[in-house]
């Protein structure tokens, strides 16, 4: 997966925030370096849970419980990086 695809992941994540969560924010208002909660977009606890569930569903990935930490939500860029890694792993895993 190349840089363009990471950019696409970022866009998709922003799309999810703007359209699938119950928050009053548009895609244009979401910078790449925005934290998803404290001091950033301010997603509340319920929004965060919904967000994780939707991300897993739309990218067909699963976060390990150890990955559910503040670092994951530091910024859209950080989250896109983790999603990118997981999506790549799925593509690289040969079928049994």
């Amino acid at each position, binding site marked *: 997966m190349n840089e363009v695809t990471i950019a696409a992941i970022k866009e998709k994540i922003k799309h999810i925030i703007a359209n699938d969560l119950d928050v009053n924010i548009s895609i244009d208002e979401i910078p790449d370096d925005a934290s998803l*909660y404290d001091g950033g977009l301010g997603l509340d606890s*319920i929004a965060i*849970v919904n967000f*994780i569930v939707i991300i897993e569903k739309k990218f067909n990935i699963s*976060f390990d*419980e*150890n990955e*559910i930490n*503040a670092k994951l*939500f530091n910024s859209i860029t950080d989250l896109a990086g983790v999603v990118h890694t997981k999506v790549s792993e799925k593509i690289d895993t040969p079928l049994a």
Partner: protein
Amino acid sequence: MSDNRLHTVFFDAPPHNRIGDKDVSISYGDLPAILLQLDAFFSAGHKRQLHCLAIRTENNALIAGVIIYLLSKNINFLLLPVNQAPPAFCDAVLTFRDNRPAGVDPHRSMEILPNHLFNKAVTGMQPASGLVLFTSSGTSGRPKYVCFQQQQLIRNAANCRERFRYNPDTKVLIPVPVGHMYGMGAGLLPAMLAGANIFLTDRSNIVKLYESIKQFQPDIVLITPVIARMMLLLDKPVAVKTTCITAGEIIKPETFKQFENKFGCLINLYGSTEQGAIATSPVDETDSVSKSEGILQPLPQVAIKIDGEEKGEILCRHNAPFHGYVDEHGYVLAAPAEATSWYSTSDVACDTGNGYFKIMGRKDNCINRSGFLVSLEKIEETLEDLFKMISKAVVFELDNNRGLSNRLIAVCEVQEDDFPDHLHIKETCRLQMTRHQVPDEFYFIRNMARLHNGKPDRQFLMQHYQTLLKN
């Protein structure tokens, strides 16, 4: 001002056990030195003579020291939720500073500012009376001030310590606000009484909760029904199996069972700001079915009486009753409760035998229909169970001006694009509910009006449900 000796119980804890938050960790062995620092802080400007100190509560380790200090000096204090203005009976407000340095230096970690609403000439509160006050939103959304003698609050906490078996080996995680009776009376105070290791986290963010569980490895976690549902929705195992305590709204049996299967033991706590902890799920009960159905066992030293043959209002006789409500100026509004008197909880329950009982709902949410006691909350719960598109239902009774029996109205919040068919809903209700439970009219809306505590605003809905429908 003479010290009382109440606080010395906290010095009996193993000195290496700790009370911590994300930035600060203090040991019980540090407490005497911290109390000396706090004494210097409060002595400056004669703050020990305050009529009542409002504390803007935060879940941090320092608040544990502050509470113990205020108890030791009999200083009256009110635990004030962060977004609430202090009432006029408080002459000062303690606030924890933002971006405070690590450590427990009180001068750098917090400040006390005067409350300009306070008027010494009219206050009903005398300094150093040993009072602890909570705010309670109640069901009306208007704050009430609930006053305890500090000994009663400690006694209440001791009941919780016994029921939850807090001991020096226990690790207690408290992510619920310690500014409310649940977090303070069932969490921080009893855990401190037991000398337990305690970790406090601010705001019940699910990500922080998972991080805290992983780092702290608690035996007991205080959660809310909302957190329980979020954990189930997230569907990730937690780092360690813990006992979770929950309080607030009743958790549905299916949700309760799912939670126990996935995360371990869940204990439902029943209580109120006025009475503190009253009862819990039977902690030794291995039959998860009866636990999940909401069976409750009174706490030690608490007696329960059902005002009726099988079901009726719960009357509670507590060894640690509250002192009374106080008004904006600190005058006690209601006669102080006595340990020998029965307190009306305004909740309705049924007797399930063996001294256990089960909550049916609020008394003012129960109605009499043709001689049958009908719980509106039970109807709401059934509607939400039967129809998955209904995310929240509120049912109320309206007078029928035509002299007929009163109408039962159901206002339902629906998340799906299309509203359900009234006839289909009613027909299903007739099959699944008793005749007296079936609402006469259904109204479907997109967003339920709610109070600031997240509960539906019943008064607003009763007055405006037809208008909401038109919008």
